[in-house]
């Protein structure tokens, strides 16, 4: 009898915990997770697979993620091949029809987004190009509204009785974005057309939204680490064009960016696409954009 009880408790302890009554949401990266929390509130339990400080292109397909995905009601992926290197084997192992391919619980984040940087021809000698365009679209707050709507739709389908709740949250999120957008644009207005260097070509959407020119990169080609000759020509171009700000993603090695900065008198700004990727952005998406707009506009103002 006692043994039986012991077995039962052990079995219960081992069996996956499930938040009762909550939608189990898995997002590939922290930015999608943040927006899912805005929409789902306390009716969802959100897990992000990649940590905000990790390079989202290179996440290990850890078996633990298979167990996580197996229990998911909704999966939010960025799409556009961002997770190409790791998500597929996880989904195959997870055998969860709720989030497989075309299921309503599988949110393709980029649905309805106008993709930038779609290559005219696919040729890997130009570096690691994404056939469907640059996958770092969520950093444009206008795109965040589209993603939020996509997520809302999936939540409504997963739990239709709370649709008014999700819809209200979507509306509130959209209004917050619209209100902040006025402020953000005001802050960035003096820097229209300013040129900024980035490590990796992951900021075209931000550049387009706020009128920046981000066309110089530490990487000679997407995914290719900086070479001495490329860095030399970059330094020269920065001097010629008087470019004084370098965006450095939180997960890249700062050494090269710092060395370029010291040669050109530029400042480096630690940036991230993911809430929590840089200190002080843990609270969510809007706080992240606040941080980016503040730090980039300050750096540009100081560089003048």
């Amino acid at each position: 009898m006692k043994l039986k009880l012991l077995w039962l408790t052990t079995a219960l302890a081992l069996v996956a915990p499930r938040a009762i009554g909550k939608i189990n949401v898995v997002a590939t990266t922290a930015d999608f997770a943040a927006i899912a929390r805005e929409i789902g509130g306390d009716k969802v339990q959100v897990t992000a697979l990649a940590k905000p400080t990790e390079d989202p292109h290179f996440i290990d397909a850890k078996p633990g993620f298979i167990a996580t995905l197996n229990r998911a009601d909704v999966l939010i992926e960025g799409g556009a091949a961002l997770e190409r290197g790791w998500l597929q084997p996880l989904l195959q192992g997870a055998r969860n029809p709720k989030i497989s391919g075309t299921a309503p619980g599988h949110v393709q984040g980029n649905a309805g987004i106008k993709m930038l940087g779609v290559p005219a021809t696919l040729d890997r000698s130009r570096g690691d190009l994404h056939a469907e365009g640059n996958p770092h679209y969520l950093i444009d707050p206008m795109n965040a509204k589209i993603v939020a709507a996509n997520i809302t739709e999936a939540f409504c389908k997963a739990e239709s009785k709370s649709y008014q709740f999700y819809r209200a949250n979507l509306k509130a999120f959209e209004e917050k974005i619209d209100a902040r957008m006025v402020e953000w644009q005001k802050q960035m207005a003096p820097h229209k057309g300013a040129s900024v260097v980035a490590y990796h070509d992951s900021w075209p959407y931000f550049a387009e939204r706020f009128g920046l020119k981000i066309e110089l990169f530490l990487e000679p080609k997407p995914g290719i680490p900086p070479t001495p000759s490329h860095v030399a020509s970059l330094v020269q171009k920065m001097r010629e064009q008087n470019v004084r700000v370098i965006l450095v993603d939180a997960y890249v090695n700062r050494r090269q960016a710092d060395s370029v900065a010291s040669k050109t008198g530029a400042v480096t700004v630690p940036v991230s696409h993911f809430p929590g990727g840089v200190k002080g952005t843990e609270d969510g998406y809007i706080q992240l954009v606040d941080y980016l707009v503040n730090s980039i506009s300050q750096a540009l103002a100081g560089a003048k």
Partner: protein
Amino acid sequence: MVFCLSASAIQAQQTNEVDALKRQLQEATEKFDRAQQEHRKIIDDLNRRLDQVQAAQTNGVRDPSVPAPGATNTVEADQSGLTAAAAGLRVGTRGAYMDIGLVGTFAAGTSTASDIEGGTQLGGHDPNQRGFTVQGVEATFSGAVDPYFRGMANVLFSIDAGGESFLELEEAYLETISLPGNLQVRGGQFLTEFGRHNPTHPHAWAFVDTPLVNGRFLGPDGLRNPGARLSWLMPTAFYSELSLAVQDSHGETAASFRSSGHVHDNEAGEEVPLAFRHADNDRGLKHVDDLLFAPRYAVSFDVTDTQTLLLGASAAFGPNSRGGNGAGDTDTQIYGLDFMWKWKPTKHQAGFPFVAWQTEAMWRKYDAGAFDWADEEEGQIIDAATGAPAVLPGETLNDYGFYTQLLYGFRPHWVAGLRFDYVQGEQGDYERMNLTLDGEPLGRDPERAERWRLSPNLTWFPTEFSKLRLQYNYDDRKGIGDDHSVWLQFEFILGAHAAHKF
């Protein structure tokens, strides 16, 4: 449910919005029609071209602009399909149709050993000679078959030390997408999920060659055969999976079972122990025991935020070749334990830095049935004491071995590795007998004798699609001596590259 979003939209909509929507619908319809016409044109064009080519071929004249038929033709044709994708046909993007990839792996180097292929190097796709080796050119095809299955095939081309070309069907199977109860069924030809190394394709290995214990116990090409596999993802908080594969137990890719002992049809490559050679392994399938059964259990969890552990236990049970001669059925049992620990900081660039430690240990129990070489016409082993064909006693042969490897990704695109291999077999009665083959005395079976190897290496990945690897092997074979080998491996990947498992 459907009105969730649209309901709010309807509430907010004004009549002029209806007009706007109508206009948008009309525009979208026009756009769709235009796209359809364009696609029709492309299809017609391709059809016309196909007709021309076929006509040219039936006339025995080949259009020089069309690739020659043959194996490489398929690949080229498919690549042009991928280019068409970029032009707007979208064939092969988003995994909608078939993903096609090609991996070419080569090696160059030298060794002090005179018996590289099957001697120092036990793997069928290891560097096999001084100079250059084509380790393998793998073509991979994969995709969803329909809403119920996904399919994958892996065909490998290689050239052996003798210069002869081989085409191997490494894997080709279909797998269920959504069976209830967390179950998954795979059917076809596949690599047996035994430990970590066996189910991994050569291009994903961290070293130039196969670990000794894998080469010895599971065969030069790994354990793989036609069969079916059922796996169950257990409903635990952590990853925990139980699986059972049932496969054929005969053929050259079932080395410790009913293998013929002729690998790659190469007479010189008789890489199974003398005691395992047999009279007859064509007895077919008479009862269910004649199949190979391979259960596996794997469990994984995060020890901390930055450390992951994966543990597995595997086994393979099946009949072996010595059982077909009236000696009664004899079986082989192989047991394996595997361990993988990986550290990766929460902040990493392109997956670096990392440290990964992987170890696999195996034990093989081979029931060798009594065997009279008089029953064999060729390749007879003679008992020197009597001068007559040897009569081998029935006995159980125990072998064990392990490898342990440490990888350190010390900066983006660079990995340093160190591997230690060890294998040993308990001396069998047949090794104590005074036997000769072609007049040469036999003693300790070189395929079961103790040996070890130490292999440091350094790998540079210019991108995830290419790699360059330098490896040194120090081999010590008991009774044969020590050898030094240096191999430089280079590899390219074209087309689709399936994501790697953990």
